[in-house]
């Protein structure tokens, strides 16, 4: 992989435009929240806005610098992962994060570096909170997805702390629902991307994932509209029941867990398994 190619793959015009649009949208929201005198919302939007601004700055700098052959964008692993999760929008298994990072952004994430990520994030969140400064915290953390019944962390499934609890919780059918959403996002990304350098790699990945959706792929060419229609058809059958379970679990989570547990999961001790059913 040549450095020049790498630079191009990291950022393109689409990324800058998207980052700009994100900042603008957040500013409008902030204005509305300020008008409505919603202090909690303003606080949250401010954090998100500063993160979005940083992302925009980075994207812009990188887009301008990408012409230079010597430019290397060595993003930290957490940023690489956060970028993938930002694209996919749903809790994602670690191996798929790695595949998408490689296909869409040209990042190769080494396995061992992902292993300690969750613990590092938790530690960083804690120390930021103990120091008491808002500025010490990161705008977004990588957190484990949580189980819907015990609200305990799921191994090998990562999410972003900015997502609502309903999305970060996984019920039994959520694995499939989330994967279908991810397929849809990748198909949308391909449709938007046009003829970007990463298109063939993402296409190959999508081909593999879409193969598990009935009717998504016929023959030897992939039709993105067809893929998205097939995904929507399968989602229609299963997502309502799944959403209901997740909303219910999130309601329970908000009432039972403190802020830290809502992000990193409850460390419950084992009780008799018979109580599980009672808890639902």
């Amino acid at each position, binding site marked *: 992989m040549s450095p020049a190619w790498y630079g191009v793959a990291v950022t393109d015009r689409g990324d800058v435009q998207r980052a700009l649009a994100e900042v603008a949208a957040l500013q409008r929201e902030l204005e509305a929240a300020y008008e409505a005198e919603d202090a909690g919302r303003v606080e949250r939007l401010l954090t998100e806005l500063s993160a979005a601004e940083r992302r925009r700055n980075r994207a812009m700098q990188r887009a301008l610098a990408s012409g230079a052959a010597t430019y290397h964008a060595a993003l930290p692993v957490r940023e690489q992962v956060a970028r993938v999760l930002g694209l996919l929008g749903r809790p994602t298994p670690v191996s*798929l994060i790695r595949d998408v990072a490689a296909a869409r952004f040209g990042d190769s994430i080494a396995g061992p570096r992902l292993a300690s990520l969750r613990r590092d994030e938790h530690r960083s969140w804690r120390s930021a909170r103990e120091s008491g400064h808002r500025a010490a915290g990161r705008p977004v953390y990588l957190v484990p997805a949580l189980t819907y019944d*015990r609200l*305990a962390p*799921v*191994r090998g499934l990562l999410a972003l702390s900015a997502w609502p609890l309903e999305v970060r919780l996984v019920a*039994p059918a959520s*694995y499939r629902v989330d*994967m279908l959403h991810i397929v849809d996002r990748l198909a949308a990304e391909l449709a938007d991307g046009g003829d970007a350098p990463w298109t063939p790699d993402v296409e190959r990945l999508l081909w593999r994932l879409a193969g*598990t959706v009935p009717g998504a792929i016929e023959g030897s060419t992939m039709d993105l509209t067809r893929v998205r229609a097939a995904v929507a058809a399968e989602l229609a059958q*299963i997502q309502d029941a799944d959403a209901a379970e997740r909303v219910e679990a999130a309601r329970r989570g908000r009432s039972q867990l403190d802020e830290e547990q809502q992000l990193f999961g409850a460390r419950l001790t084992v009780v008799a398994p018979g109580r599980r059913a009672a808890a639902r």
Partner: protein
Amino acid sequence: MTRTAAEQRLAEYRGDCPSQPLTARRLAGLLDVPGCVRRQVLDAIGAPLDPLAELLGAPPGGQSPFAIIRAQRFEERVTTGDMGPLLMLLRERLGAPVTAVRECDLSAEQVRTQYQRSDDTFRARLSEQYLEQMLDGDKTAVNLLRRPVLTLTLGGEPTFVEPDLVAYTTTDQLHPVEIRSYPCIDGIADPGQVSVTAREIAVHVIAAQEVAHRLGRGRERVATRGLLALPRNFTLDATGQPLDVAPQVRRLRRILAGFPARTALARHVPEGTSLPAPPPRDAPEAVRAAAAEQAAEALGALPSRFGDNCLSCGLFTFCRNEQQAAGAVARLGNAASNLCGDVSTVTAALDLAEGRRAPTTGAEQAVADALSRAATALTWQECR
């Protein structure tokens, strides 16, 4: 012999040797060596066969590291996330509906992350609870259970087995799903490998049937028809075939039911011998030699039954050498030893054949006649 005395005798015999739970593969191996007391005792105390065999001079066993990595990669590919490739296979081959996508992963790592403990007893309890919901036809029950732990009783003692997957489909039955990494080339997998897998699936089916029975649901709720997921050709894409293991289940049930109780087995175990803890491969030669001597003595003290099927047992090399040293006819294979009846050594058989010893019983007479006819035929053939 009382139960306590038997337990004590077996524990003494096990000595420092670590005990490990029996795998489905080892339980399926019971089909090969029915009636071998040596193997039964080792199975009853859960002694590891391969380290012992290697200590006794068998070539190092185990799979190639490349095969293991490939197997892991294939399993990861089909089971991470939503187990998409398996869902597709279940829909195509077992007729599962699109809505059957409720999954739960009970593998040791996942359970440890969520519950901070992952011992077999605990996982077996969790699995049983999920299986009960599945058998109840509960709408909120999972219908794809990954790596549940099932309890199977062997000689009155519980052992744990771990199927890759148990799936539940509309046909009102639970189906076993097994993932293997040998390829299915042009739709055909190696029949030898498939038959080994079929026997392991049979172990899982029996275990699941027993769980269903214990929960008062009836054994027939667990189907003998399962799905075998294999890599297609030389890729890591999954393909699969339905596999009915009813004959294997029937045979294995008979063997398991006939497995002697621990009190009966303890009677064969002599006092004053015990197995050593297998020393590590890089231990000094003297340590390994001492351990090997102790192991040979302990194993040699148990009666064995040697035959053609022993090839798949870990102790094959040891038992074969033993038969060879004793000059037993069993070393020549089942056909020869069946022919020789109660004449058990090669020397005795040759003596009878060549008339150096007169037969004393009717059976010996028959053997002597057969052998001398064979010897004559052989001489004639050589003369021509």
